[in-house]
Each structure stands twice: as C-alpha cells, then as structure tokens.
C-alpha cells in the first residue's frame, strides 16, 4: 500500500521545466564560445603557412601582404615587459595587504582602489599613458614600453587580488610555527609564506598574462603599431590584437584572412596560457 503523500504533478512539471530552462541557459552561454572557436578555426587555418609565421606584414594592400611574425613577437615582448612590471608590484601589494596591512585604514583604502581599478575600462589605461607619457613631459612619442605600462595597469589589480587570496590561504599556524622558531617576519614572508603560496601566485600571474595578451584598446595610442619586427622597447611595435584590429577594417578579403589567421594564433596562445594557469592551480597543495 502506498502511504506516501504524492508530489503534485504540477510541482514535478515545474521542477523539470526549471531544470531544462537552466540547462538551456548553459547551452546558450556556451554556444557563442563554440561558434567563435569554430569559425576562427575554419577561416584561420587557411591562412596558416610557414611564411605566415616567418614574415613581417609588408603593409601592401595588393600583392604580397606578408605574415604576422612582428605581431607575434611584439605581443610577447610587450606582455613580457608588462608582466615584469605588474607581477612584482602586485605581489608586493598583496604581501602588504595580507601580512602587514590586514584591516588597517591604508590597507582598506588600497583594497578599495584595487577593486576600483578592476572595473576601469581598458581603453582608459591607454588614455592615461597617452596623456602622461606620449604627449606630456619630455617622453613624447609612441613606444612599446608605454603599451606595456598600460597593460601593467590592467594586470595590476588581477595580480594583486589573486595573490592576496593565495597568501590568505597559507595557514596562520605555518606563520606562527616559523615565528615561534625566532624567525623575523620578513624571513617568514620570504622563506615560508611566499614559497607556500607560489602555485597560487603563478596562477594569478598567468591569468593576468592571458588577459593582457588579448587586449587591443590599451595599445592603440601607446604603441600605435608597426610593420617590421623590432626588439627595441623604445620603438613603435606591432602586436597580434593590433594587427587583427587593423586588418578587419581593410576592404580586402586577403587581409581579412590574415586577421582570421592571427586570431587563431592569438586564441591558441591565450588558451595555452590559461591551461598553464590551471595546471599551476592544480599543483597548489593548499587546496
């Protein structure tokens, strides 16, 4: 005999309807990702060849338009310098916030502005750098390092936030154990806290690098762009996002094909960095 109260059919229907509606949300959210990847692959693969990666764009509208060598190298150079600026400062700030400042007024203020910085549109970082370094003062003109500076501003809050989180994950018992052995605080931070948090710091840094690699807007009025490969950070430089942005707007199918190829290259680079970040996160023994 059935002694249970029956769940009304209406409630069951609503439940399964909700389940399917929410699943539809997942599908709708992921469809663009699949479509973008699909089209970039489909249209981009045709552009790839050895010379695509080994020649600089010529700037010619007709005839031999060249590849994206300078763009790839430029992206690597600009982002590498940006990382060299943003990661040390970001980690230092995080150490201050988590180890020294904690809930002090200054720490709360810094946290607040790091938060604010996270929400600032990336094109404004380009504007900041333009005003201060490109037209202002003695340092006039466009240069790769100015783009790096703009990207560093963009990366700084990401690095700081993720680093603070990974430092906070280091258990206090570890710090106390080291302090109880008579180690001064700076030693505890350097020898115990930072090494323990390293995988987390690495993940944060890599995610910031991935984010910066795809940014176009901060580079527009800082590095401006170039055709030839250069290793001088004081010169104008090419980069993948800039190359794509310029090629998209050319009324020439061949240049557009180069844009798709460059997009494919850029996406693969960013996905690899993301993958590295996840692997670093997996090695994190604090989780």
């Amino acid at each position, binding site marked *: 005999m059935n002694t249970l109260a029956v*769940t009304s059919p209406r409630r*069951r229907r*609503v*439940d399964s309807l909700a*389940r399917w509606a*929410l*699943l539809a*949300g*997942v599908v709708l*959210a*992921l469809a*663009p*990702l699949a*479509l973008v*990847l699909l089209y*970039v692959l489909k*249209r981009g693969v045709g552009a790839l060849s050895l010379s695509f990666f080994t020649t600089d764009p010529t700037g010619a509208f007709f005839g031999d338009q060249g590849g994206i060598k300078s763009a790839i190298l430029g992206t690597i150079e600009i982002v590498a310098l940006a990382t060299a600026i943003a990661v040390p*400062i970001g980690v230092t*700030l995080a150490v*201050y*916030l988590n180890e*020294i*400042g904690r809930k002090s007024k*200054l720490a709360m203020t*810094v946290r607040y502005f790091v*938060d*604010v*910085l996270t*929400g*600032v*549109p990336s094109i*404004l970082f380009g*504007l*900041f750098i*333009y*005003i*201060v370094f490109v*037209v*202002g003062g003695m340092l006039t003109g466009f240069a790769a390092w100015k783009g790096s500076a703009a990207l560093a501003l963009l990366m*700084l809050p990401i690095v700081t936030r993720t680093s603070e989180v990974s430092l906070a994950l280091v258990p206090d018992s570890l710090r106390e154990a080291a302090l109880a052995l*008579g180690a*001064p605080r*700076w*030693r505890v931070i350097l020898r115990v806290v930072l090494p323990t948090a390293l995988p987390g710091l690495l993940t944060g840094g890599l995610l910031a690098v*991935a984010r910066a*690699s795809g*940014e*176009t*807007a901060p580079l*527009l*009025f800082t590095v401006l762009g170039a055709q030839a490969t250069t290793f001088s950070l004081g010169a104008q430089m090419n980069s993948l*996002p800039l190359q794509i*942005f310029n090629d*998209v707007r050319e009324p020439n199918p061949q240049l557009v094909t180069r844009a*798709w190829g460059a*997009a494919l290259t850029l*996406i693969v680079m*960013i996905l690899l960095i*993301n993958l590295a970040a*996840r692997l670093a996160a997996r090695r994190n023994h604090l989780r």
Partner: protein
Amino acid sequence: MVEVINVPHTVSGARLKSRRALQADVILRWSLRVTALSMLAVLGYFFVRLAITAEPALSHFGILGFIFTNNWDVAHNIFGAWPLVVGTLITSIVALVLGVPVAIAAALYVTEFAPSRLRSTLALLLDLLAAVPSVVYGLWGVFILIPDLKPAEQWFSNTFSFLPFVGGQVSGPNYFIAGLILAIMIIPIVSAVSREVLATVPLQEKEGALALGATRWEMIRLAVLPRSRAGITSAAMLGLGRAIGETIAVTLVIGSSPVIGHQIFNQGYTLAAVIANEFGEATPGSLHISALIAAGLVLLVLTLVVNGIARGIIIRSDRRRGSIADKAVA
C-alpha cells in the same frame, strides 16, 4: 636595562640579534607601506591629469552641455556627447537584458543541477568565454554575426514594427548587434560571480529545504535565491560596468554614426568606440583630443558609479547577513 646584566651572555646576544631583525622588519613594513601609498598616488595623479586634459572641452561646452548636447560634429569642432552616452546606454541595456538571465541560469544549473562530475568542466568552459579577446569577438561579429543575423533582424523589424524602437530598414552594424556581442562578453563574469555567490549558501539551509519535501527548484526558490539575491544583483551590475567600458568589439560592430538611431537596428556610437576610432586622427592639443578625453572621463565616472553600486549592494547584504550569523552562533 638593569636586568640585562643578570642574564647569561648568550641570551643577550640573541636579544641583540633579534633587535637587528626587528629593524629589518620595520624597514619591510615601511617599504611595503610606501609601495601601497605610491600606488594610490599614481592613481590620483592619473585622475588629475585626465581631468586637466579634459578641461578645455568641458569648460568650452560646460560639463552639462558636453554630456547632454545631441551633436557630435568633428568637422565643425562641436562636441556634444549625448549620442555617445545614449549609444553606450542602449548597447549596455541590450547586453544586460540578453546576457544576465542566461548567465544566472547557467550559474544555477552548474551549482545546483549539473552532475558533480560535469560541474568543474562546465565552470571551466564558462570561464573560457572570457579568454576570447575582444578583437576576436569583433572580427566574428563583423564577418559572421552581422551578415547571418541581418535577415532575421529585418524580419523582426517588419513583423514587430508596432513595438517602440523597432521598424524600418535594418543596417548591418547596429545597436542590437553590439549589445548581443556585449551580452556574450559579460556572461562569463556575471556567471562566475553568481556561482561564487551561490556557493556561499550554507548546505544546512539547502538540506533544510529538501528535508521539508521541496523539489530541487523549490529548494532554489526557498533557500538559495533569497540568500543570493543581493549578490546576483551585484554580479549583474559588474556585468553592466564591463558592458559600458568594452571598446574594441563594439567599435567594430556599432557602425560609428554619431547620430542617435531611432530603432535598435540602427547604427550608432558609444563613448569607448568614439575614443578608439577618433583618437588616432585627432591633432594632439586640439579641442577634439580634449573632447575625447572628456568622453573618457564620462566613461570612467559611469563605470565607477555602476561598480560602486555593485560593491555597495554586496557590502550592505554582507553586513546584514553578518548580524544574523553572529546571533545564530550566540
């Protein structure tokens, strides 16, 4: 100091050493503090310089005149940013309407319905949406989305012409396309923050609902959503902030027309896009540059306000929740 005389030599040596270590600690503390302070100083400096550079345009047209004048005419050196402000608002609202429900639904499915084995994979894929660069979304929008969607948009425009802001000839690049791409771009952040918020709902409360004979969906309505309403609202606001400031993809699909379109399938312009497009052409030191920087300042204030509201919502609900949690423990 008198006691020091009595302690054995080794101990006082250790004390000396620790005093040196103490000095190192003091140096460390201060250098870290200085780093923190200089970051604040740099930010302050940037803001001041931005304001100074925007000042010529703002004093020429007046702050309100600059924002609310419906005339952006580069050739005649007249800069009223209203068409850009309106374009920014329209595209962001379209993004919010299309993107937020999808993002929240996805977050709810991942946290409450998905089989536990699938959860991390789905979360990873949702996060990867954010890994696609803005310029690639723009490229895709220009060459795939615009041509593929145009017939559907035209059909919609003809069929629903009785609705406000709908009807007439559809142009390729338009507010709707820009809003749609923005919706895609804000989905990862809205859904990631929502997932974080949903994950903070205590298991006991969810089990409490289930033990009352609630179905999964009823549990969500009973125990999950009331708890996370504030957090999800603030996730949506963060998404709005992103949409307002997003530049490159929008620049490519908005149509770059500084005249307000009368329906959502018309061309338009946004604050960020106008800066990206016109900055390179403007003469340094000109009124045009100043006006563009002023547009950037308006953009900055808009995003700061929106993000500030998002943060305020979180802090307020945290405080309220905190008081409840304290009582429950007592």
